């Protein structure tokens, strides 16, 4: 679901084909019939953005028919835990959970906690601003007293236990409702439920694959939560052939979250300090918590080693290891907020773009370009001269008169970049596997690697600041920046050594994060990568075939953490440590040897027996019981119900997309009540019920990529061999929609939203099919988004159609579903285009408040909401 794996991940899809050859059945649930569907046993057409309604239906099916893997659920999930009496569900509040504040459009999550766990009330506004839930990353947020024992009912009968709450929450997600919301016929839906449940249990497992078709929604994090609940209920996590596969969008995007490029994370999912963190101890208490279970208990060792890696000898116990050198976040510093600040002026003066082409590739391309046109300077590093470097002379806004070349103030510095074959380093792929690649050829001309660029930037900034007595320059001047060099470039393998971690007493690499110390005697650039250079050997460079080492490929590359191929694989054995079945054995307890063993590296302490009970008062790793399979969670359990950590509710709930042709059939609450909306003249929204005039944009729009091109096109539109394979921007429509709008195959048409209109050639195809949704026919249209004004093949920027509205947990934009109109013929050009779109806005009654009245249930006054919103000031 939410993935077109054959087209977007063709190399990974070979394993699906191999599974198919061995008898696996493949189901593809997607708005359109793609090259993935062509190889699926069953294709299910779904209305874009309704996946929680579908998955909620699956959860309801499992719970109604008692099809869950009960022993697994009781032992390894939080199903038995009792919830607080203060908790109120969407069932009680018409689509809202308890703790909602309509003024800030945020939740105080304190009522979502476990019954025996006291939580302080905490207004959600700031947490939402800094994306606090995401900062907890793999760790999950605190559950105070988690290690002290949580009140539970192992029979799962108590009305306040998670299992019963789950049952009640999803009880209205019936097959009839799935059909009415998603447009999926009931019989087809039940076929999916049947196949999924029959293929799960002791003897069988089912894998779930998703991609950005799930993440790029205003409820994206909850889509994934819904999938996780199904997989936990069916016992498909931590077991061979099971799992949830998050396919990433680019080579090493996994790596760029592990060693992050995000404003609110440090390497290894350690949170970025915020303004409340006075010193290292306050910060660390915030990460590991008191009385928490699991491996975040050693966060002090991870953090101190990181600070020592950054600032070397300058970092000492006396100065808190230079913790004060780290910047503090005090609000939303994400991409879209930053771009709006660029447009508004006065806050952002310079901008680095590395391997990114937001003028084409980011949602609301127009906003991106107008922002970049309002900078003092812009640095672009790319393989080719991309639109984000040339917008000042060829942006669509030149034609409309919104950007005037002579008056555009931005000074652009373009640096040619070395390609992946011209530099050495690692890629981290979707399985968390680091694979080293050697340099194949020397880069030509001025092309240089990213490593060279940043190293030189650091070297030159330090030179420039040398001798400065200003306190604010200390962090830069004290940076260790002491990598071995090869020529004028740091040695990539030495950088990997530092990421792995080094024991300063011996000068040798550590073997893993268990060796890291909080006393300043070790350095480590990213604790979860610790072990990739164990034994002074580049483990990511290993290339022993699976035919020699078995199906888990233990000696091909290196997977974090500690070369484990399946996360939480303790769950592949029953609570007593025996495999659930011979057929699905992975790791198990060897009582004679007194250790965990098996085909994968056990994701558990090697010598902790299954019947181990943590002593009272223990915390951290020591507090994990022998059956606490989910070793990173605060309570050691897989979370069916998230007692904390999500900005928009402890359970996934179907909300209509921000722009939708229909009313939410399940609740009075129409859309995600916590989504981030930005009502600005340059970011209008198409109206959605209960607002009037949604019929002006009657069709559901979704966009995605083609195999033949790569994202914003910098790596494909410039290459003849790829450009000729998909030579022009097109829009896919069903024969039915073609008839309705008078569109003819290969003729021109244009697609309109309240942001702009773009031209495209029409492709009429049976692969697109209309849906019957609550008694009416809903058409969906699809466009690839690879085109821009430069390259061998040119076209309008599809991302210009998309506005900015974001998921409140991770701030990702809702670019996979919106509404639009489609008309035959080409769009108006120049200033006439602006007038044309303005006319659409007039007809739809669009103002800056459209789409911002986000609380539509619970008797809250409909109030326009704009991010960031402050609580009402007491007057």
């Amino acid at each position, binding site marked *: 679901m939410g993935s077109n794996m054959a087209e977007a991940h063709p190399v990974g899809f*070979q394993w699906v084909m191999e599974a198919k050859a061995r008898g696996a059945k493949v189901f593809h649930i997607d708005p359109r019939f793609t090259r993935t569907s062509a190889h699926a*046993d069953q294709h299910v057409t779904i209305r874009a953005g309704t996946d929680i309604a579908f998955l909620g239906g699956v959860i309801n099916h499992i719970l109604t028919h008692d099809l869950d893997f009960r022993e697994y659920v009781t032992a390894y999930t939080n199903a038995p835990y009792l919830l607080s009496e203060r908790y109120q569900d969407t069932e009680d509040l018409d689509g809202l959970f308890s703790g909602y504040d309509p003024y800030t459009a945020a939740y105080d999550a304190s009522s979502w906690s476990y019954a025996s766990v006291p939580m302080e009330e905490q207004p959600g506004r700031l947490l939402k601003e800094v994306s606090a839930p995401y900062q907890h990353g793999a760790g999950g947020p605190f559950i105070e007293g988690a290690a002290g024992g949580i009140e539970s009912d192992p029979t799962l009968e108590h009305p306040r236990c998670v299992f019963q709450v789950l049952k009640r929450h999803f009880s209205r997600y019936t097959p009839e409702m799935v059909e009415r919301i998603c447009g999926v016929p009931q019989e087809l839906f039940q076929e999916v439920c049947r196949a999924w449940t029959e293929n799960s249990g002791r003897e069988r497992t089912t894998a779930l694959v998703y991609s950005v078709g799930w993440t790029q929604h205003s409820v994206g994090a909850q889509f994934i939560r819904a999938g996780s609940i199904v997989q936990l209920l069916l016992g498909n996590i931590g077991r061979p052939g099971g799992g949830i596969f998050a396919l990433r969008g680019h080579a090493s995007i996994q790596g760029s979250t592990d060693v992050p490029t995000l404003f609110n994370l440090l390497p290894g999912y350690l949170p970025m300090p915020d303004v409340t963190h006075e010193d290292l101890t306050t910060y660390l208490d915030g990460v590991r918590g008191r009385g928490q279970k699991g491996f975040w208990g050693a966060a002090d060792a991870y953090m101190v080693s990181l600070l020592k890696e950054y600032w070397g000898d300058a970092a000492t116990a006396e100065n808190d290891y230079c913790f004060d050198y780290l910047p503090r976040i005090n609000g939303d510093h994400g991409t879209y907020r930053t771009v709006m600040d660029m447009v508004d002026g006065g806050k952002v003066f310079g901008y680095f773009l590395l391997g990114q082409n937001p003028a084409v590739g980011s949602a609301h391309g127009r906003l991106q370009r107008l922002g970049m046109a309002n900078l003092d300077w812009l640095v672009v590093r790319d393989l080719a001269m991309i639109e984000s470097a040339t917008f000042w002379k060829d942006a669509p806004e030149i034609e409309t008169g919104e950007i005037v070349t002579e008056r555009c103030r931005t000074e652009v510095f373009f640096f040619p970049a070395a390609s992946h074959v011209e530099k050495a380093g690692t890629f981290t792929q979707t399985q968390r596997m680091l694979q080293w690649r050697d340099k194949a050829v020397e880069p030509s001309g001025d092309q240089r690697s990213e490593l060279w660029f940043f190293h030189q930037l650091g070297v030159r900034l330090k030179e420039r600041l040398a001798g400065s007595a200003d306190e604010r320059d200390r962090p830069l001047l004290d940076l260790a920046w002491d990598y071995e060099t090869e020529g004028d470039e740091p040695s990539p393998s030495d950088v990997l050594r530092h990421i792995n971690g080094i024991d300063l007493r011996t000068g040798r690499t550590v073997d893993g994060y268990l060796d890291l110390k909080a006393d300043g005697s070790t350095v480590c650039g990213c604790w979860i990568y610790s072990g990739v250079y164990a034994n002074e050997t580049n483990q990511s460079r290993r290339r022993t075939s699976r035919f020699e080492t078995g199906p888990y490929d233990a000696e091909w590359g290196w997977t974090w953490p500690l070369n484990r191929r399946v996360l939480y694989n303790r769950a592949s054995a029953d609570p007593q440590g025996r495999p659930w079945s011979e057929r699905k054995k992975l790791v198990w307890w060897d009582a004679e040897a007194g250790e965990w063993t098996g085909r994968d590296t056990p994701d558990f302490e090697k010598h902790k027996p299954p019947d181990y009970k943590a002593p009272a008062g223990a915390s951290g790793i020591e507090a994990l019981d022998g059956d606490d399979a989910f070793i990173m969670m605060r309570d050691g359990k897989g979370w069916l119900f998230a007692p904390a950590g999500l900005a928009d509710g402890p359970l996934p709930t179907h909300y209509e997309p921000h722009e939708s042709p229909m009313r939410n059939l399940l609740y009075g609450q129409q859309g995600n009540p916590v989504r981030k909306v930005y009502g600005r003249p340059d970011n209008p929204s198409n109206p959605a019920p209960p607002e009037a005039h949604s019929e002006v944009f009657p069709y559901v729009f979704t966009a995605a990529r083609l195999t033949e091109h790569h994202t914003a096109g910098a790596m494909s539109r410039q290459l003849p061999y790829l450009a000729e394979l998909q030579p022009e921007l097109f829009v896919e429509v069903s024969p039915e929609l073609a008839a309705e709008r008078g569109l003819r195959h290969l003729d021109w048409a244009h697609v309109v939203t309240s942001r702009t209109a773009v031209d495209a*050639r029409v492709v009429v*195809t*049976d*692969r697109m099919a209309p849906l019957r949704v609550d008694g009416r026919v809903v058409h969906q249209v699809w466009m690839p988004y690879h085109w821009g004004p430069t390259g061998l093949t040119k076209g309008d920027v599809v991302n210009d159609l998309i506005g900015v509205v974001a998921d409140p947990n991770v701030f990702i934009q809702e670019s996979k579903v919106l509404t639009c109109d489609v008309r035959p013929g080409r769009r108006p050009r120049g200033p006439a285009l602006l007038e044309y779109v303005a006319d659409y806005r007039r007809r739809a009654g669009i103002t800056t408040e459209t789409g911002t009245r986000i609380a539509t249930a619970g008797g809250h006054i409909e109030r326009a909401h704009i991010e960031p919103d402050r609580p009402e000031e007491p007057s």
Partner: protein
Amino acid sequence: MTQDNSFYGPLSDPAGNAGHTDHPPRVGFFTDTSVCIGCKACEVACKEWNAIPEDGIDLLGMSFDNTGMLGASSWRHVAFVEQQRPLGRQDAGLADLPVGPSSTQETAEVVADALEVAKRGGGDLGTAPVDLGFPSFDLPGAGTGAEARTEFRWLMSSDVCKHCTHAGCLDVCPTGALFRTEFGTVVVQPDICNGCGYCVSGCPYGVIDRRPDDGRAWKCTMCYDRLRDGMEPACAKACPTDSIQYGPLDELRERADRRLAQLHEAGVTEAQLYGRDPDDGVGGDGAFFLLLDDPEVYGFPPDPVVPTRDLMSMWKHAGVAASALLAASAAVFLGGARR
């Protein structure tokens, strides 16, 4: 096996027949279209390795196929066929959706017009590949009704030079530019080709073609240079799902037979092999296919025949005709002398 014959019918050792002694086993491609995901990596890998120029950045709209056909600068071509019929027991999930009639007939007509004007290979030299019809979206007469569509499948198939046992192109080449390699494959040498174009009309599949800018004929070499270095051809190497398999032809034929049986067992009764049979009109192909419909659906000729099949009888007829002519001429002179 019947008698080996240089012109027609089964031939156990084409390389040996061409004069190679002590040569490696005959190699080929088995393209299993049932696992092709249409990624076109084969097209790109082929062009990269063989440094083939781009040949037209224009939207053909033939489903996802914008290559159109094999040609002088397209040695691999992935066809995309949208059809109103199920694939084996696959379910496209159209039942109960508010769908109307299919659009494939209409789009096919638009595409046919567009293909006419699209410049491809040596089209403007008058030596365009034989027009076999673009891959038809359906068998003629099928699915033309106005009723709602209920079934759908999307077929993909990577086409390539067949490296025939009896290669029409090679047999008619007057310069020796085309030759049979020690691997049993057929390769054209660009430094010898004089661009006469006989080979273009000699190919029963419409594969070989002349490049407009230099007039010479080009086609797949099965990466002869890579084979000589012990490597597999670029397209097979790049194929992520092993739809394109390379190896000794005998082995591939066995593998294909097993795969066919497996598919038939799985309910894909329409699966068939194309070019595998040594008794066919070209003595069997060095590059053969597993198809999920009749060959003409993918743009393959249903019954290709090498022109040299009729060579013997043509010479016999020519001989008879020449003798008759001679006799007649003689008769004229003789008759005249009598007068």
